[in-house]
Structure formats: C-alpha cells, structure tokens
C-alpha cells in the first residue's frame, strides 16, 4: 500500500515539475519514480498499514491549516503594530509550560505552529515541557489559553 501511495505522490510531483505530457517524458517519469519508490519506500511512510483513522487525521490536518493561516495573519499584524509603535511596548519573557501532547508528530506540529505564529518561538522541548520565547504579554496569554494545543490534540486524536 505504501509503495503505491509513495509512487503516486512522486509521479504527481514529476508531472507538475516537468510540465511535458508526451509519452517519452511520462515514461521516463514512470521509470524513475519506480526506482525511487523502490529505494526510499520506508522513509516517507513509516507505517505498513493504513486505516481510516489516518485518513481522518489527514482531513483534520487540512482543516487546521486555514485556522493557522488566520492566526498567523492576526499575530503578524500585532507584531507589526509593536514594531511601528514609537514606544515599542514589548515585554519579552521565556515561558515554560507543560503540555498534554504525547506523540512525536503532534509535538512537532505544535512546536512548528508556535514558531510559525509571530511573537512566539519554541526554544526547546524537554520531557514534555515547552520552553517558549514570547515577545509580548498578549501573545503569551494567547498561547497559554491553549486553543492551539487543543486543536493539535484533536488532529492526532489525543483529546
């Protein structure tokens, strides 16, 4: 199963990047995609079997992206207002808080979402504790309210 999915993803990429749809280029693509699939099938997907649970995860992740973009937009405007304010009312602090997430993939998603949102950077995760550098009190409070954490937990079914 993962052979087929890896092959289809690679071939989609080939078609997008080559842009030539004649038989010669497509057959070259099929040959090289089969070779690359054979060599790297265990890198892209670690699991052997796919169930409906994973499809639900993918759908929930896609639903999460627009919310994340909206959040990035809001906090970017906030940071821009901080930068352009002559008094520059920043209050940088290093926050430490415990998380309820367990799986590696959800920790990574949450950490990258925090870093993508302007005003907060994940500095480190040590044994389930996040070290986050926050630029102002507002972004720190937004983060500690835990909405993003709950949404990530919902994607990977940890709630």
């Amino acid at each position, binding site marked *: 199963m993962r052979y087929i999915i890896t092959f289809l993803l690679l071939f989609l990429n080939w078609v997008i990047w080559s842009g030539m749809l004649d038989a010669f280029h497509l057959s070259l693509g099929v040959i090289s995609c089969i070779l690359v699939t054979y060599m790297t099938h265990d890198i892209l997907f670690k699991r052997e079997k796919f169930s409906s649970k994973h499809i639900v995860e993918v759908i929930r992740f896609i639903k999460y992206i627009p919310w994340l973009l909206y959040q990035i937009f809001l906090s970017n405007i906030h940071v821009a207002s901080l930068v352009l304010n002559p008094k520059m009312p920043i209050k940088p602090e290093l926050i430490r808080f415990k998380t309820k997430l367990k799986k590696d993939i959800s920790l990574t998603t949450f950490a990258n979402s925090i870093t993508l949102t302007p005003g907060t950077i994940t500095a480190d995760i040590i044994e389930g504790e996040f070290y986050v550098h926050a*630029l102002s009190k507002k972004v720190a409070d937004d983060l500690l309210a835990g909405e993003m954490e709950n949404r990530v937990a919902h994607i990977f079914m940890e709630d």
Partner: protein
Amino acid sequence: MSILAIIFILTGVFFFTTATIGLLRFPDFYCRMQATGKGDTLGALLSLTGLALYNLHHGFSLPTILVSIKIMFIAIFIFVANPTSTHAITKSGLDCGVEPFTKEEVIR
C-alpha cells in the same frame, strides 16, 4: 486579477518592511529573531501568492497554471523551512547562554 496581485504584493512588502524595522529596533538577539523569522513567513506567502496570481493574468493555460503551482510550492517550502531554522538558531543561542533581555522565567 492584476489589481488583486498588486494588493497582495504590496501587503507582503509591508510585512517585510516591518520585519526589517523590527530587526533594527528590537533590543536583543531573541526579539530580533522574532522580527526577522516571522515577518518573513506572512510576507513571503503574500508576495508569492501575488506573483502566482499575476502570472495568471494573461489567461489560463496549462503552462501558466503549472508555473503558478510551482510558485506556491516555494511558499510551502518556506513554511516548512522557516520555523525549523528559526527554532535551530534560537535553541543554539539558548544553549550557548545568550541572556534574554528580561530574565523572567514564568512557570504557569
């Protein structure tokens, strides 16, 4: 379509500008990371979306649509690479003992 593209690119340039001003104004290493690492994500997304739309303004055909898809792929790669590198630089700063500007460690 062109007007929409111009609006997108101008907004993106605005966020790039604020990122650069922030780089010059903020007091310490971490705050400067905040300004540069972050203004870029939205700035790059908006500018690249604007370019992808501008690319379509001659009309929809297969080559132009493919070029627009490739431009949006650049945005996706920036969205994956930017937080990772920002995190790596911040973590190495913390490991080397660069002191944050106000040293308040709040435990909540």
